[in-house]
């Protein structure tokens, strides 16, 4: 990774990212310490501020704008859609594993995504891995390569509609 790409960013973006990073690390700190005693809070704030200052160039996913109420509503909707897909995919795996004839028809298909941020692509790839019958193998620029346990189509557009559309609709609104 280029270490000097930060210098090209405006100060406002840098500060916004820094505070977002600090906020997330503070949430993790309070989750793990599980107490609100004054010294714990003070130590946590100082330590997380130092860590987020030192590792700011590794944190490229988002800044404070992601905390707007509309985006948080879309995030909750995304988590809901994702959990339903996760449970469905587990029932799907259970059905395939337990049926004596092992009904699989595997292959690797590809499709193009409309997302342009790397973090959003990673979230989409993770979600695709946990949805029924699909496993994301690689992302090259904007092309996703997906292993599909039951190939219905090899056409990229059709595959996009079958696999990625419900997630990408929401992700495009968040990122």
């Amino acid at each position, binding site marked *: 990774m280029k270490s000097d790409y930060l210098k090209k960013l405006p100060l406002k973006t840098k500060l916004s990212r820094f505070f977002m990073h600090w906020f997330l690390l503070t949430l993790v700190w309070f989750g793990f310490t599980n107490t609100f005693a004054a010294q714990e809070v003070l130590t946590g704030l100082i330590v997380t501020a130092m860590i987020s200052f030192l590792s700011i160039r590794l944190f490229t996913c988002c800044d404070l704008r992601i905390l707007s109420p509309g985006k948080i509503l879309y995030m909750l909707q995304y988590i809901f859609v994702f959990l339903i897909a*996760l449970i469905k995919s587990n029932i799907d795996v259970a059905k395939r*594993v337990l049926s004596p004839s092992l009904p699989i028809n595997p292959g690797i298909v590809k499709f193009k995504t409309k997302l342009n941020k790397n973090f959003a692509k990673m979230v989409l*790839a*993770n979600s695709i*891995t*946990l949805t029924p019958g*699909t*496993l994301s*193998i690689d992302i090259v620029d904007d092309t996703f390569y997906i*292993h599909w346990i039951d190939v219905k189509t090899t056409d990229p557009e059709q595959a996009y509609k079958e696999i990625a559309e419900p997630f990408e609709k929401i992700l495009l609104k968040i990122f």
Partner: protein
Amino acid sequence: MSILEIIGGILIITGSLFLFLGALGIYRMPDVYNRLQAGTKATTLGAMSLILGVGFLMPGWILKILIIIIFIAYSNPISSHALARAMHLRKRFMFFKNEEIDAYKEIDKNNNPEK
């Protein structure tokens, strides 16, 4: 037994059931990609459900447990992606049948910008 303990017990049993199904899937599936499919999905929901069950039994730990669940959902698919990609780049196309459906073959190892 309180209602929280009953919910926790049910969640732990469900989680272990899914983990068992994942293990069975790894045993029954014919090649590495299908094994990863079964393994990743079942272990993700299995571990999440099991840890959430522990959270219901021990309500004081619930924040830690939510963080662990987020980390599992974040890191499990990445490790399966790394394994599948490494297998494909080493030319192990152990396909069960219809080997021709493989769009990823167009990626040459030498063209790959990360290599």
